[in-house]
């Protein structure tokens, strides 16, 4: 039977170490909403999402209460809208009308984000894909809760450099369209390589076409729990360090598995996956960078950071995989800058640069995330940053992403406040040298060879 020590340990994790379930994300297929008439399409989308998700928030709160574990976000992901809207949308405004519908239904059912204003263009763009991508700046300015993502490359197809070039421009335009809010629109826009179909985390969540009609995916969180566990093994060998991370990750993931199964049962929707990512928040003690420091670095970004992150990421997966019957999504440590107080401190102290962050993304999930850069950064430079990150994902057969925020009207030395889970960030220096000629070539980078690994 459960004993007092175990109960106290669990409750300390929840109350003192910020253990929570970061998100229950309900994936909804919109393929059966496809219609050539825009009004009918919008109506069908609204109805389908409303019917599927009307009890989501209530159910999440009920589960949180029964187990005494906070469930921070209840969210929705939908089929990439470029696929759903292709038959009906003839202009950018047509796509924006769908974004407004998504925003309206997100408000109605009470979720804080809805992802899937997306296009998958890793090899080429259809007319609809391109229209959707070009409509992103307007769509993100006109809505509050809609998140957008574009997959521009994969290990199997290579990198669509036309899309990479376009995304550099789209990110800048999105920043311009939302300049009043410190270019906040860009915080809701992610560019992916090897985007997973079942990611529950925003802004990159969408409901892949290989998924069932509806599915429940859950993302757990627990950087604070890992850090506290590591405080007890200071000075011990790597073996002890790794074992401690693994055991802690197991416990954290079990909570996610429990919540996912319960949500699946109560909503009558199949359980998809648990995403094992260590997701930080700006709250004190909820930081991945702090774990790196606890492993033995003065600041995240110091020499040794990539190795420390690699071992952290791997041990989290090893512990988590056994704790859940299905693991998926991004599953690794997130290293967003603005959402992690330890990362912000490292940037402010001069310990962490964009280039070091890029190196770190080679060994952990996602990529250059929530990084504020000067508002006068050129579109081609942003495309260059994207291309570098996509290349890392393509060659290493992993998901990588870029979510940078060119803050219009601000430069290096200033900082930007997004509020809430999105946090605040110092604006980071970008390499000033040009890559115009590289980006302007056009076409695709071919898929990499899958043999002769080295």
């Amino acid at each position, binding site marked *: *039977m*459960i*004993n*007092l020590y*175990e*109960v*106290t*340990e*669990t*409750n300390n994790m929840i109350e003192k170490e910020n253990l929570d379930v970061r998100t229950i994300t309900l994936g909804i297929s919109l393929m059966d909403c496809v219609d050539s008439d825009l009004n009918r399409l919008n109506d069908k989308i609204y109805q389908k999402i409303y019917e599927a998700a009307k009890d989501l928030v209530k159910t999440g709160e*009920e589960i949180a*209460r*029964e*187990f*005494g*574990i906070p469930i921070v976000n209840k969210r929705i992901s939908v089929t990439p809208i470029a696929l759903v809207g292709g038959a009906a949308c003839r202009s950018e405004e047509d796509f924006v009308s769908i974004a407004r519908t998504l925003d309206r239904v997100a408000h109605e059912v009470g979720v804080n984000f809805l992802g899937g204003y997306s296009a998958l263009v890793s090899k080429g763009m259809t007319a609809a894909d391109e229209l959707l991508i070009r409509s992103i700046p307007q769509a993100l300015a006109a809505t509050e809760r809609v998140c957008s993502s574009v997959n521009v490359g994969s290990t199997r197809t290579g990198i669509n450099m036309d899309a990479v070039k376009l995304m550099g421009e789209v990110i800048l335009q999105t920043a311009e369209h939302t300049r009043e809010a410190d270019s906040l629109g860009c915080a809701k826009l992610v560019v992916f390589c090897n985007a997973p179909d079942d990611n529950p985390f925003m802004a990159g969540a969408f409901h892949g076409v290989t998924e069932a009609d509806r599915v429940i995916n859950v993302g757990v969180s627990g950087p604070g729990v890992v850090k506290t566990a590591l405080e007890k093994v200071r000075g011990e060998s790597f073996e002890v360090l790794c074992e401690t991370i693994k055991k802690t990750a197991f*416990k954290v993931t*079990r*909570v996610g*598995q*429990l919540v996912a199964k319960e949500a699946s049962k109560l909503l009558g929707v199949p359980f998809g996956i648990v995403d094992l990512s260590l997701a930080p928040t700006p709250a004190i003690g909820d930081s991945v960078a702090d774990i790196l420091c606890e492993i033995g670095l003065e600041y995240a970004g110091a020499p040794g950071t990539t190795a420390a992150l690699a071992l952290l990421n791997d041990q989290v997966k090893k512990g988590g995989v056994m704790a859940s019957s299905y693991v998926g999504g991004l599953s690794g440590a997130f290293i967003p800058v603005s959402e992690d107080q330890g990362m912000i401190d490292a940037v402010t102290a001069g310990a962490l640069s964009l280039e070091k962050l890029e190196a770190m993304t080679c060994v952990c999930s996602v990529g250059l995330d929530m990084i504020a850069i000067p508002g006068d950064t050129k579109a081609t430079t942003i495309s260059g940053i994207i291309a570098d990150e996509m290349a890392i994902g393509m060659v290493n057969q992993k998901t990588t992403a870029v979510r940078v925020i060119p803050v219009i009207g601000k430069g290096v030395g200033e900082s930007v406040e997004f509020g809430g889970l999105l946090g605040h960030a110092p604006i980071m220096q970008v390499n000033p040298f040009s890559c115009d000629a590289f980006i302007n070539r056009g076409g695709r980078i071919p898929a990499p060879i899958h043999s002769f690994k080295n």
Partner: protein
Amino acid sequence: MKKTIITVVGKDTVGIIARVCTYLAGNGINILDISQTIVQGYFNMMMIVDTNPTDKNFGDMADELGRLGEEIGVVIKCQKEEIFDQMHRI
């Protein structure tokens, strides 16, 4: 059997267990196990209870116990057993 874990944490005072047990008995909730310690003057108790016989719903029970805790000056939490089982048992 549906088991619930009730934890009571706070400054030690006379009659904490009595008041909690009176509430549980009044609502037909059977206590299966109690363990309790005092650490540096702080009262720390865990009860495993069987909520099957009661027709009270979980939320109401948790609210009422929470309010009782406020009256006594301690924090009372109710959680379904599964969260602990999942985390600490393979």
